[in-house]
């Protein structure tokens, strides 16, 4: 009996049981549905085994949207709990689990796959490539990431969720204070997903460095590709730190090592340092691609080139370097003295300079433009002032002496949501709306889209501005309740209402997708926005090989497609030849399943199962090393035939 008890949720509640039933029913419905419609074969051969960067991108997108709603429900529950003083809707333990999973899910399993969706979908198109450098590694990276995400979510129903915060500070995260297997899930699920992310980083650096279209020098790369290059460089430098620190944490929890324990020479702040050595750059991994997306959108709808292209690039390069020099600002209050705090205070504030340069460049891109207020542009226009607000409160936090008063308070929570929601989430939704026609062949409804943005911003302001105030009034973060006497209740109620309004905006987003799927016209061609980048020079839907003829951009600027349309620059100069393509493979998926098994077994210390999982992984690697797979060719005639079909449809 004891063996099975470990799999029970240690702090069950009515809500958890309801969700368990719902999750079980949904899973059964999905399995039954796929079986009924006989789609297993299709799923396997077209999606699970795919090496096509566009399809992998869409799988990242679906994961991100799914997790956005999971994290959103957590957020609403937290705000509901805090809406009135002395609330008993959630008990402390449950609240702790919810803010922990909310943080992890939002940062690692929502924002990360969202940007990776854009890496996958856009980068090869923007640089005129047929695929990424390592298509099969790309598939493996996705499945590792996905298995990590699913493993993490499993904690909700099997064994218990982590409860030490998304930062999982030791010694709180060690066995003596976090007694359920929840934090094992944290350590191992993030580890598996993180390995996938590291693979993505290597893959996209190689892709961008090696596979650019002829004539595309570094300083002719579209801005999103630049931002991706920098973000992936940060990934490759930062993620190994996460790998190491999670491994140390895992060993402390599972094997009784003493890296971060109380006593025996364990150093609790070592975790904090290593965590933030990864954690701060991570923030820039998220925000830089978001900046790239905004740059694409703002140029398109100002009908102008990007102001200060070079300073945009250099500011990103500088930000990427600085991002590694500021991690201590997350614990100015650790007692390292005035000298250290002064240094990190200054390095932190320095980042504001290149960031400010970017804001001014976007503003000057509007100058003498011809501004069209489409939905993606509306997101961008809301982003600029809201993000500025978040940025300046970041500068406030960077004043280390004053930060003693803001640290660990709702002021901080307000600040980082203030940069991450208008920065990352708006960029992702703006980019999604912008590229939707390229992805799916129809436009999202503009009326609903614009209303969504307004509702979202209203909800956002209501939800987060009050937190600045309650933070300065002493409301600490991560507190599951507060007493009437504190006087926080009015503002927290406002905040809850705001969160509710934000939830409505996300429902509007879903409704828009459904509504447009039903009603939008499908004959929109391949360039419905009159856009500028090379990614719009392909057909819609995009053929498997992206470009029948590799584009040549030696006579173009960073906006090759615009040059073609305006100046008649020739992009496609060669003639159609046979095209080499990689083969699909099921091996990465099988290997990732073995990783899932290994991870699950380790979480529950089931060593025999873990060894089996490990052997399967090794087996996959050995098999792969003996496998001969040179891909295949699409013959020139077939490419021509496909191209003819597009011409017949009149879609260029």
């Amino acid at each position: 009996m004891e063996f099975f008890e470990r799999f029970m949720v240690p702090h069950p509640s009515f809500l958890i049981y309801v969700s368990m039933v719902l999750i079980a029913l949904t899973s059964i419905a999905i399995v039954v549905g796929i079986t009924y419609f006989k789609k297993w074969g299709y799923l396997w051969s077209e999606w699970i085994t795919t090496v096509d960067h566009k399809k992998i991108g869409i799988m990242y997108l679906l994961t991100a949207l799914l997790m956005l709603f999971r994290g959103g429900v957590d957020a609403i529950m937290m705000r509901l709990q805090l809406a009135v003083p002395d609330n008993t809707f959630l008990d402390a333990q449950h609240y702790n689990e919810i803010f922990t999973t909310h943080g992890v899910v939002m940062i690692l399993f929502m924002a990360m796959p969202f940007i990776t969706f854009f890496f996958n979908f856009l980068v090869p198109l923007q640089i005129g490539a047929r695929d990424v450098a390592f298509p099969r590694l790309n598939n493996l990276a996705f499945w590792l990431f996905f298995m990590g995400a699913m493993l993490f979510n499993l904690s909700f129903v099997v064994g218990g969720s982590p409860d030490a915060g998304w930062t999982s500070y030791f010694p709180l995260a060690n066995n003596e204070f976090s007694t359920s297997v929840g934090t094992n899930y944290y350590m191992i699920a993030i580890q598996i997903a993180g390995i996938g992310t590291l693979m993505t980083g290597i893959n996209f650096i190689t892709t961008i460095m090696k596979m650019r279209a002829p004539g595309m020098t570094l300083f002719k790369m579209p801005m999103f590709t630049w931002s991706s290059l920098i973000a992936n460089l940060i990934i490759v430098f930062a993620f190994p730190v996460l790998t190491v620190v999670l491994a140390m944490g895992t060993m402390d929890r599972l094997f009784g090592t003493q890296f971060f324990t109380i006593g025996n020479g364990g150093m609790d702040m070592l975790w904090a340092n290593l965590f933030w050595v990864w954690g701060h750059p991570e923030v820039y991994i998220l925000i830089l691609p978001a900046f790239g997306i905004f740059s694409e959108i703002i140029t398109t709808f100002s009908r102008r080139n990007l102001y200060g292209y070079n300073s945009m690039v250099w500011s990103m390069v500088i930000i990427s370097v600085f991002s590694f020099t500021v991690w201590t600002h997350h614990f100015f209050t650790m007692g390292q003295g005035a000298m250290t705090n002064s240094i990190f205070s200054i390095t932190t504030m320095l980042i504001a300079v290149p960031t400010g340069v970017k804001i001014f460049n976007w503003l000057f891109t509007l100058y003498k433009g011809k501004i069209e207020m489409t939905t993606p542009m509306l997101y961008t226009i809301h982003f600029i002032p809201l993000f500025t607000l978040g940025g300046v409160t970041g500068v406030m936090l960077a004043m280390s002496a004053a930060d003693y008063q803001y640290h660990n308070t709702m002021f901080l929570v307000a600040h980082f949501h203030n940069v991450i929601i208008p920065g990352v989430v708006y960029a992702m939704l703006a980019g999604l709306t912008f590229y939707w026609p390229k992805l799916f062949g129809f436009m999202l409804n503009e009326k609903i889209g614009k209303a969504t943005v307004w509702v979202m911003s209203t909800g956002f302001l209501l939800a987060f501005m009050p937190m600045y105030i309650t933070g300065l009034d002493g409301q600490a973060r991560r507190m599951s309740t507060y007493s009437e006497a504190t006087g926080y209740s009015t503002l927290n109620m406002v905040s809850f209402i705001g969160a509710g309004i934000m939830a409505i905006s996300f429902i509007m987003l879903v409704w828009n997708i459904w509504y447009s799927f039903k009603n939008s016209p499908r004959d929109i061609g391949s360039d419905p926005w009159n856009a500028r980048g090379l990614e719009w020079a392909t057909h819609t839907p995009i053929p498997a090989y992206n470009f029948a003829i590799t584009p040549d951009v030696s006579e173009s600027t960073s906006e090759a497609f615009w040059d073609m349309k305006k100046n008649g620059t020739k992009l496609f100069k060669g003639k159609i030849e046979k095209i080499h393509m990689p083969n699909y493979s099921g091996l990465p998926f099988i290997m990732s399943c073995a990783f899932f098994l290994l991870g699950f077994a380790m979480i529950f210390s089931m060593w025999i199962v873990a060894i089996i999982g490990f052997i399967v992984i090794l087996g996959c690697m050995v098999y792969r090393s003996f496998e001969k797979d040179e891909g295949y060719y699409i013959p020139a005639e077939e490419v021509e035939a496909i191209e003819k079909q597009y011409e017949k449809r009149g879609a260029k």
Partner: protein
Amino acid sequence: MKLNIKGAFLAILAMSAAVLVGCEPLLVLDPKGPQAEVQANDTIMLMYIMGAIVLVVFAILIFMLIKYRASKQSPDYEPPHIHGHWLVEAICIGIPVIIVIFLSVQSVKSNYLVENAPEEYADQEPLVIYASSSNWKWHFSYPEQGIETVNYAYIPANRNVEFKLYSYGPITSFWVPQLGGQKYAMSDMVTTLHLAADVEGEFWGRNANFSGAGVAEQTFEVTSMSQEKFDEWVKEVHETAEPLSEEKFEELLEPGHLGRSTYTGTHLEFAPAPEHNHGNSDADDTDHSNHEGQENHSSH
């Protein structure tokens, strides 16, 4: 649609203004001691500078949006290709650089002010209080006075108080907003927080760092009073309170919430603070016997 939204924004503004006006000053902006005052002044200065920056961005944005809207221009208008201008870019870099330099100087100054004893009281002997956290309480030990309290502290007004912080368990953060910012209390080292009150009164404090299920109620009160009243209180404690025994202290360390309590003697006698050198303090003490005391208590 748009007008409604504008109405909503106005409503929000009006509402927040009402909330702000109707309330007492926010704790952080209502300092009752020199350290908190440094921080409050910095905060207010920052709010002005940052507010100005936000206004500039808003103004430029609104100007651009009004002036260069497609609907206001002739259909055949073609926006020019503009690369950038060295002067504009110099201004956009120069002004932020100047602001950052100014703030850096200010930040370094404040750092040294906050990290050291307040200048006004620098010439007096500080009162040393060891404040240690356990799940989910605060223990205050007065080594000089030979007394110990749980969940409340009395301090003399107009005198520098040196709080020596450490933890029996997860990392916590000692915070009395009206007297000054917070600092971490950890199990393997002692950190020092200088606070002082320049008025008499009661100040609310808490553990601001998440440390497990009971953290929300891990609060305490600091009361500042005249030196005479403080001395009187110490005398009274010696007359009325029971001595703190090792068993009693062990009991206090058990996780849970307690009200206030008071003892004579301190736990420092049988369970010294982890005051050895961890490589970054000025103490040159490598005596690890303190560690053992630590482990005994953390083993439950």
